[in-house]
């Protein structure tokens, strides 16, 4: 995949170019034995480690949005098998920003619902840049109810800049479609696992994320508003997005401290876009682990625990005596 490197990745790219030049220069010789080649290769490793171990919140947001990052359908292909896509909300249309259907992971047959972005312009337009309309949320609910009916667990992939802010979305009440999902997911009598794989954009993310377990990839983010949006409102200018990203504590580690995510799925060094297969293996392992834990729990207990988990979220003083 040929995409432009992120600004902070440029030192790595420069070294890689240098290494390529040198290898070309040494054409025909034992390149890997050359001390200069080894020296540069080591420097690349060190530079990458240094950069990726000291990422700022804003840098992570950029990785989470990386065009070469694995998207939901990539994980469906690499970590699942036998995917049968099911279309439509039975009310208005089929939302391509929110594919869903039946798929198998390890020993589990499940229902999968997902935000889907596109890479090239044409595909991105078709997928509406991963921003779902009300039809997407209503299709998701239809499929979740099907999962409940047939005793299948639900796996959802969250990767959206947010629900779509458009005229049609408002006319067909995108807010209500999200609200209903929040209410119904809370009492769904089947195990649910959500994975934030890239962007967790606000209510549009939460709309498929009220799950027994919420997992997040190491460099993904989950936020009440985009850093640009927060900057525009609180700083009066989008150029403060980096500060906003820092201030909102939207990274995986912070969310785990808050108890809002249950596990961080490690990404390969250099980010998930660096190695799709390795990322998918890590995701598969984590999802299977949680599905196995949830399998044994009776449905009523699942719902009670799910409610208790979300009920806890909030920071305030006082109010002990309820």
């Amino acid at each position, binding site marked *: 995949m040929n995409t432009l490197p992120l600004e902070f990745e440029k030192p790595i790219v420069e070294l890689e170019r240098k290494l390529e030049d040198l290898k070309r220069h040494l054409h025909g010789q034992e390149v890997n034995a050359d001390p200069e080649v080894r020296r540069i290769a080591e420097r690349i490793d060190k530079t990458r480690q240094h950069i990726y171990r000291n990422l700022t919140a804003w840098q992570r947001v950029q990785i989470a949005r990386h065009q070469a990052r694995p998207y939901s359908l990539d994980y469906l292909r690499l970590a699942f098998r036998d995917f049968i896509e099911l279309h439509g909300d039975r009310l208005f249309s089929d939302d391509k920003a929110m594919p869903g259907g039946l798929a198998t992971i390890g020993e589990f047959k499940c229902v999968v619902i997902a935000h889907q972005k596109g890479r090239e312009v044409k595909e991105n337009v078709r997928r509406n840049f991963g921003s779902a309309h009300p039809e997407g949320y209503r299709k998701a609910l239809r499929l979740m109810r099907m999962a409940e009916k047939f005793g299948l667990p639900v796996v959802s992939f969250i990767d959206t800049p947010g629900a779509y*802010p458009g*005229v049609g979305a408002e006319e067909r009440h995108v807010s209500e479609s999200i*609200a209903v999902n929040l209410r*119904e997911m809370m009492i769904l009598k089947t195990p649910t696992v959500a994975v934030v794989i890239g962007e967790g954009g606000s209510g549009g993310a*939460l709309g498929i994320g009220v799950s027994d377990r919420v997992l997040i990839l190491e460099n993904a983010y989950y936020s009440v508003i985009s850093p640009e949006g927060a900057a525009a409102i609180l700083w009066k200018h989008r150029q403060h997005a980096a500060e906003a990203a820092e*201030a909102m504590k939207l990274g995986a580690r912070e969310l785990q401290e808050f108890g809002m995510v249950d596990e961080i799925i490690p990404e390969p060094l250099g980010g998930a876009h660096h190695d799709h297969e390795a990322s998918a293996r890590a995701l598969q392992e984590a999802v299977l682990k949680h599905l196995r834990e949830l399998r044994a729990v009776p449905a009523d207990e699942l719902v009670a625990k799910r*409610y208790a988990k979300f009920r806890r*979220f909030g*920071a*305030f003083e006082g109010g002990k005596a309820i």
Partner: protein
Amino acid sequence: MSFFEKPSFIGGGKKKQIPNGLFVKCPGCGELVHNLELQENQHVCPNCEHHFAFGARERLAHLLDPESFVETDTDLRPVDVLGFQGAAAYKERLQKYQQKTGLVDSVVSGLGKLDGREVSIAIMDFEFLGGSMGSVAGEKITRAIERATARQLPVIVISASGGARLYEGMFSLMQMAKTSGALALHSQARLPYISILTNPTTGGVTASFATLGDVILAEPKAMIGFAGPRVIRETTLQDLPPGFQTAEFLESHGLVDIIVSRKKLRETLISLLAYLCCATPQSV
């Protein structure tokens, strides 16, 4: 009881005022309206029915049976959980709005009566940081719903909110799940929930409890939506249809059950609850 509690609330007098503070220019008809007249008329313009902003405590005084309201969860106080330092520090914003409004946060909740019938109620006040929903607002609304479930009561929520409290980050977002989840359990107990949308109701509040009512009422001309009109225009490069995101628009597009003038709200609620409350097992 909280030490934040104020003895009484004389609200609505802090709007943009004409010199001596006695008259307000009505944005609906352009007429000057006397402040006292507005207060007596629940902040509805006597000429054109324009609904002015209405503080939570004043609303309660007009809505419920006299002396019936008992406020709950008065000691819940917001905290700066993220240590938010930005263009403005959250702590300072909180102090400023607490002083300005006499409220501790954006929601007032409690138990009261409507024509003798006990109800659990939560009201948002737009004057407090744009009625934004942070942990305290979410917790108060959740408790109001849970209290209703436990006591087999109807729950009424009156919304007025710009959406999420950005200063609380993900804690704010999670209030959407919490309040909606509490409504799931209330609904399973077959108890009525009436949601009332007032100007404005947007963002995460619209995308959670506010649109989940068994019956959804709205005040005339209230602005109701998910995304703001500016964001929609910038994203879509589309002109917005006339009346877009007004209560009337949402009634004709099927979200709002009834548009109710503020002065008719009490009697409407009483009539609705008479139908929905104490459902006899005849239909089961």
